[in-house]
């Protein structure tokens, strides 16, 4: 609402305020637009040299990175050959698996917290969830490296398995399993916090109405409560996926630092093979930003990440649209 147009002086004061704040807003928008433009501009040489093969496989990506870096010397011709498939595959596997597992677990835990947990348990769980959601990722990485990785290395991977793939890659605890486990634990609290807020917002009248029709507690909450909160579930998942995609620190510590493409055909060993997702690759090579082709390549990876984050938001928005039809507040 707006104040009634009083005298000119008051109108001016409001207009001035609106203009100043509007300018601030515009500034932030411009900076963001500049960021997108600059990132893609820096990324372009890498894409243009590789074309669609950028996303494909072929060759050892670690060697390629090395070659790109050394070619940055002014004396040599820049080398851009880069096939990022192992990195993409690693990112997809780790992020995808972690998000799926975290979603299922977070939904049930959130339902538990909102509806079925005893009072004392709820009072403990809620602050704990919010605390966990704000723990820095480097601490998760530390626990991962000092606890999870040795455990996997010593107890889950057998000597036989190590020997069987020793000629291709060395299996230590730094593996996809460690990455997925810790990433799940990292993004679950975020999802739980968002889901709990959303489930709480379901109007009590609907739940009570369902109970008064003779539907039991569980079905009432699941069919009415969770169904009503579907937009919130989407929002929480998008948020957690974005966090998982961009997670560089923790994954660089525990997923193993080789650009290796885990092979499902390897059977169970598949889960303990090392790899390195996109964000962790950028982190590992930031020292080498001085070399121009390296910089272009790293920005290309950043561009892919940026694009994915934007796509996620868009998908989230699109998924929520049909839910609006029946009056669920999306």
């Amino acid at each position, binding site marked *: *609402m707006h104040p009634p147009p009083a005298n000119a002086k008051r109108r001016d004061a409001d207009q001035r305020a609106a203009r100043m704040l509007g300018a601030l807003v515009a500034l932030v928008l411009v900076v963001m637009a500049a960021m997108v433009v600059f990132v893609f501009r820096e990324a372009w040489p890498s894409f243009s040299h590789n074309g669609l093969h950028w996303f494909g496989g072929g060759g050892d990506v670690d060697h390629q990175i090395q070659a790109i870096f050394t070619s940055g010397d002014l004396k040599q011709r820049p080398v851009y050959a880069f096939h990022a498939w192992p990195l993409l595959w690693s990112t997809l596997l780790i992020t995808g698996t972690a998000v799926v597992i975290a979603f299922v677990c977070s939904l049930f835990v959130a339902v538990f917290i909102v509806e079925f947990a005893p009072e004392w348990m709820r009072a403990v769980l809620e602050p704990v969830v919010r605390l966990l959601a704000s723990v820095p990722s480097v601490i998760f990485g530390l626990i991962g490296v000092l606890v999870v990785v040795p455990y996997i290395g010593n107890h889950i991977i057998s000597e036989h398995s190590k020997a069987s793939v020793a000629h291709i890659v060395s299996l230590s605890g730094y593996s996809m399993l460690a990455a997925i486990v810790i990433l799940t634990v990292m993004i679950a609290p975020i999802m739980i916090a968002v889901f709990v807020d959303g489930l709480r917002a379901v109007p009590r009248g609907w739940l009570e109405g369902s109970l008064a029709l003779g539907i039991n507690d569980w079905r009432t909450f699941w069919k009415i409560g969770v169904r009503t909160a579907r937009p919130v579930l989407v929002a929480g998942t998008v948020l957690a996926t974005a966090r998982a995609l961009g997670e560089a620190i923790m994954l660089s510590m525990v997923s193993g630092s080789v650009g290796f493409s885990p092979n499902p055909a390897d059977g169970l060993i598949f889960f303990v093979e090392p790899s390195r997702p996109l964000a962790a690759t950028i982190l590992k090579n930031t020292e080498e930003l001085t070399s121009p082709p390296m910089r272009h390549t790293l920005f290309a990876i950043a561009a892919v990440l940026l694009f994915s984050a934007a796509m996620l938001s868009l998908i989230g928005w699109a998924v929520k649209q049909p839910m609006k039809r029946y009056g669920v507040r999306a």
Partner: protein
Amino acid sequence: MSASAAAAPKIRVASSATWRLRDRIGLGFAWLLGLLFCAITAAIVIYLLVQGVKYVRPNLFVTHPAAGFDEQETGGFLDPLIGTFLVGAMAMAIAFPVGLGIGVWLSEFGRPFALARLTESTVEMIAGIPSIVLALFGTLIFQSPALGFLSRSAGGVVFGRSFFAAAAMLSFVALPLVVGSVREGLQAIPGHVREASYAVGKTKAATTRRILLPTARPSIVTGAMLGFGRVIGDTAIIVVLLGATLRFDGAGSTPLLGTLRGTGSTLTTYILQNAPTGEGNQPTKAYAAAFVLLMIVLALNIGAGLVSRQGKAMRWS
């Protein structure tokens, strides 16, 4: 119709059970996961506490870190500790006013509509950008000659890494949180408060400044604290834009400005370095620093919780 024959009294036919097996399994699963979650979080928190208490020593807080091979030589984490607070304060110094402004604009002004929608989407997008991408972008900006004064230059090449650079990019990380909490706080105020103020002739600007913002203060403060917590937990931007030198390495001799233009580290990079995957490889120091960082984050969370509960006490009916 004849009134003599009464309708036979209707008794429910024994219908299906009210609780199907699937429901029981679902409920059981929820309980199981709830307890499992409790167990895992308890394990993490207890483990960190135990390890931290084991390795934290008072002298770590006041000793400068140094390169070395064993515990005695590597010193403490005084510089990273100061660095954490320094970079956090600087980032919030940028994010808070900007976030406040954007939040107020979105909530109270917001014309033209297209601009408002665009801003909302942009803030949402910023929340989803990985910090490593922000870090890379920061290198582009701060390595350009125009902004060379914000960091060290040597031989015509701008280094581009300094507290200024890190703080500027970190402010993006905190921005969505501040904007969100400002909007939430303002939107929770019912319309009749604004109407009452306009009815006595106050401008929108005055109303916002004198009435709405003070009322929304708990929400805004909570957002700021959470933003601060998020900023000090970030590692990627620090690694790329702060140079990750163990001690503060000032550029130039001006007392404060020199430090801010120079490189340094924070608790997060300290932990990163001293983890087994890092160069220092002093796990004991890493645990100690992790414990301290966790305590800071915990204190911030508790503080934010207290503030918001105080705010709820003042709820509008």
